[in-house]
Structure formats: structure tokens, C-alpha cells
């Protein structure tokens, strides 16, 4: 039935896209992007409607300062930590990167489902949860994907491949893409242009929306992308037939999450290098970058050292057989495995 609703809603767009892909490739990527957004919106509306009668839950909200505790009555399966932060202060809303629900890392835009204790964390509160850095790095990869997707002209065939588990210790976040250009080596100016595009995304403070969908819907969304279509069944298997999607602006990607609240959390950022990978797929490029949370002032020399390090090829690989938790120990195992390889 879900499929039915969606197919009715997007039939027009799909037909349009198909005709265009047959005739000429201009604007096809844009059409697919629009189509994905329509499906995303419809599915979200449907899930909202599925909640039915609104029930209230009581949320014990702990302010970022950590002193006061407030009791809030929120809507079950509708209200998110962001809504709670909106009741609190502008500061909590703007700087809230991640929340802890009964001690478990929780997206700022993931609806609350039970009575709980909620704590909104800023990027400085790393002592409370080590997931903050991983969420930040993951979000950077997502924004990098959006940057790549929006930076290339439409006549270049481009498929986003994936980004790996966030390994902060490797010194750079990354995103892989298949680009139909042979032996592309970006110039300084091109990298700078990519960085500028990245910063455009961060300056807009776009909310990072989250949606869990069924496998079929995800497959429908990414049917044009052969690599994602291959990955989705694997991902769905490990998540009981569901796929978690994240959206910033118009860009939608698959990730396990959690991610930070909005793109404004990312401050200083640079896209440092693009490497061609030796892999089964032809023309697979790895985009690498480095970013710091907004409000962190690092002098240009130290930042230069970090940039220099982020230029080296990041050899982190995606390992589907293992589901890593966001801890430092798993980071060490990944590093060890890379060293062995």
C-alpha cells in the first residue's frame, strides 16, 4: 500500500526522469534528487499520520549548563530533542549537537517514544559521551557527500558510493564517489571551490533530518545508483529490514547515525584532497577533508598541520561484517587492522 501511495505521488516525476535519461543526460541528477525528496517527504508525512491519537510523555530535561532539571510534557513519537531545546533557550537549540536519552546517544531530530531523561549536549561536553566526535565526523562526511553531489556539472556522470565508519584518529573524514572522469587530479583552485561549497552548507545551518524507511522505499529512492542499490539489502539485513536516511537541504544519504543537530555545528572546514582509489569499480575517487566544531579557535599553524595530515590517503575501509560501536576501542581495532593490511 505504501508503495502504491508513493508510486502515485511520484509517477509524474519518474516518467519525466525516465524520458530525460533516454534522450539526454542533462539535469538527470537534479531530477533524481527531487524525486528522492518527494518520496522522503511523503514517507515522513505518512509516518506522522500513522502516529494517530497523540499521547503525552513526560520528559525530564536537563539543561546544557547541567544544573537545572525541567519536566516537560511532550508528544509521543512526534516531539524531538530539538523541540525540547526550543522550549529551553536559543543557546541550547543552536549549540545542541547530540542528546542523551537515558544515557543513550540520540539524534536531535529523532522522535522520543517514552518517558525519559533527556540531556542536550554541546560539542564541548565530550566527557559525557564519546559519541559526539563520531557524530560530528559522520555529519561532515554527509555534508561532503552533499558538496560533491552539488558541485559537479550535470553532464558528468556521478554516483555517490559511500562513506566509512567515522574514524577521527585517521585525521580526515571522507566520502567516496564514482565520477566518470579518467585520472582526475584536482587543482588547488578546484579544491578551494569544493571547500567553499562545503562552507556554504555549514553556514546555512541546515537541520539534519532523520527518517527510518523500509528497504523497498530505500531501493526505490536509489534505483538509479547501482552502488547504493547493492549496499541497501546488506544494510537492511543488519537493521531488521529498515534503512536509516539522513537529509540536509535536498541531499539524502544512508547512514547508521547518530548525527549532530544541524550543519551549523561545523565551523572551520577544508576539503584537502581527492585520491583515485584502486578498486573493483572504475574511477572511484575518495574525497577527504577536515573540519572543526564552530567556536573552536585553532591557530592557523596548528590547523595547517592538521590539513597537511588530511592530505594523505585515508585508508579506512568499510567493513560490512562488523558493526562498530562508537567507542575508542573500536577505533583502535580499525587502526590495527589497517596497519596489518
Amino acid at each position, binding site marked *: 500500500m505504501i508503495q502504491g501511495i508513493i508510486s502515485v505521488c511520484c509517477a509524474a516525476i519518474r516518467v519525466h526522469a525516465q524520458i530525460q535519461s533516454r534522450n539526454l543526460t542533462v539535469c538527470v541528477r537534479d531530477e533524481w534528487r527531487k524525486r528522492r525528496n518527494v518520496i522522503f517527504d511523503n514517507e515522513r508525512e505518512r509516518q506522522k499520520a500513522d502516529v494517530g491519537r497523540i499521547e503525552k510523555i513526560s520528559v525530564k530535561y536537563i539543561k546544557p549548563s547541567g544544573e537545572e532539571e525541567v519536566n516537560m510534557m511532550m508528544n509521543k513519537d512526534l516531539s524531538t530533542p530539538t523541540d525540547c531545546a526550543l522550549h529551553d533557550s536559543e543557546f541550547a537549540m543552536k549549540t545542541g549537537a547530540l542528546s542523551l536519552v537515558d544515557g543513550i546517544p540520540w539524534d536531535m531530530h529523532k522522535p522520543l517514544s517514552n518517558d525519559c531523561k533527556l540531556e542536550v549536549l554541546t560539542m564541548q561536553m565530550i566527557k559525557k559521551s564519546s559519541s559526539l*566526535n563520531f557524530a560530528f565526523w559522520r555529519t561532515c562526511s554527509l555534508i561532503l557527500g552533499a558538496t560533491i553531489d552539488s558541485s559537479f556539472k550535470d553532464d558528468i556522470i556521478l554516483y555517490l558510493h559511500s562513506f566509512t565508519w567515522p574514524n577521527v584518529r*585517521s*585525521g580526515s573524514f571522507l566520502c567516496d564517489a564514482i565520477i566518470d572522469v579518467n585520472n582526475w587530479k584536482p587543482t588547488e583552485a578546484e579544491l578551494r571551490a569544493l571547500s567553499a561549497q562545503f562552507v556554504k552548507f555549514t553556514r546555512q545551518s541546515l537541520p539534519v533530518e532523520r527518517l527510518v524507511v523500509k528497504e523497498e522505499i530505500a531501493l526505490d529512492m536509489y534505483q538509479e545508483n547501482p552502488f547504493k542499490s547493492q549496499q541497501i539489502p546488506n544494510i537492511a539485513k543488519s537493521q531488521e529490514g529498515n534503512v536509516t536516511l539522513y537529509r540536509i537541504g535536498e541531499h539524502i544519504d544512508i547512514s547508521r547515525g547518530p548525527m549532530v543537530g544541524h550543519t551549523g555545528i561545523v565551523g572551520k572546514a577544508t576539503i584537502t584532497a581527492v585520491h583515485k582509489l584502486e578498486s573493483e569499480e572504475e574511477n572511484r575517487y575518495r574525497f577527504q577533508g577536515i573540519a572543526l566544531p564552530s567556536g*573552536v579557535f585553532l591557530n592557523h599553524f596548528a590547523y595547517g598541520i*592538521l590539513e597537511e595530515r588530511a592530505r594523505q590517503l585515508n585508508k579506512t575501509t568499510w567493513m560490512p561484517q562488523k558493526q562498530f560501536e562508537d567507542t575508542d576501542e573500536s577505533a583502535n581495532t580499525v587502526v590495527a587492522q589497517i596497519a596489518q593490511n
Partner: protein
Amino acid sequence: MNQAKIANLVCQLRYNVLPKPRKLKNVKGPEGRSIKLQKTLTKLLKYERIELNLNRADETRGYVEQLISQAIRNGCQNKTVMELANFWILEKQLIYKLFNVFVPRYKSYCTSFTRIYNCPRDYPGSYRKKVVLELKGNPYPSIYTHSSDGNLLQNVLLSEAKKQYHIKHYEKFI
């Protein structure tokens, strides 16, 4: 040759006093100097954290350390200590504070009892260096707000860069 070591006889401070005393130049001469020190010392015991010029703060610091350590060593029964306290402390109620609050607080300390922080200077303003002088263990929130948490993102990145640099550096020698 059986002379006892002088260092063991004298009450040793955990603070290095300058070899030459500062003159703290003023119209009254040496008397004015001790009046200045009395005033600062009294205020320090009273407020536990004060902001002033570096010269005067550092000079007073030696006197405060000496007074508290004498009080801890000899207790309130000792005549010399009482005379000392009576001379240096202008507001007499603070003598009680010295023996009832500071002595118990600093009894188990193995560091100095005072601390100095550098302050930013007003611009434009006097050239003199400003500092904050405080007694340790005071009830105020800490002045030092820098978090030295190694798990902050920038710290993780920098420490990994450092590790990599060292590895590269050692590879040259192997």
C-alpha cells in the same frame, strides 16, 4: 663540625622569596613599605582573592606564607606568633580567622598556600603587570577555565598528528 644544618632549624617555605626585597617606593620610606604590605596582607586574608600589581602581590606573598606557616608550626599559644599576627594583620578579627580557618585548612598542604595568576593589562593604561593573588582552597570558582580534555575533537586530531610526526621522525634513524 657537629653543627646542625641551618635549613632544618629555620621554618622552610614552599615559596621562593626573592634574594633582595622590593623597596615598594613611597614617600614614607621603609615604614610606608611595611604599611603597604600590612594592608595587602590583611585584605588577602579577608577576601582570599585580590587583584593588584605584580610587584606588591609577589612581595606580600612571602609574608603571607611565612605568617601562615609560623601559625601552623607554633599554634595560637605562642607569644611570638601572636605578636607577628598582631603586627601584620590590621583588622584584628582576622587573627581568629587565621588560627581557626587557615591553620586547619593548610595543615596538610605540601605546596605553597598562595597562588598568582597573570591578568590582562588595560589598554591604554599603566604599564605595570597586573595579577590575581589568591589563597588556595578558597570558596570561589576557579579562575582557570581551560578544559584540558584530551578527547575534544581538536585535541584528538592534534595528538594523532603528533604521533605520526614522531613515527616518521624515528623511521629516519632505523
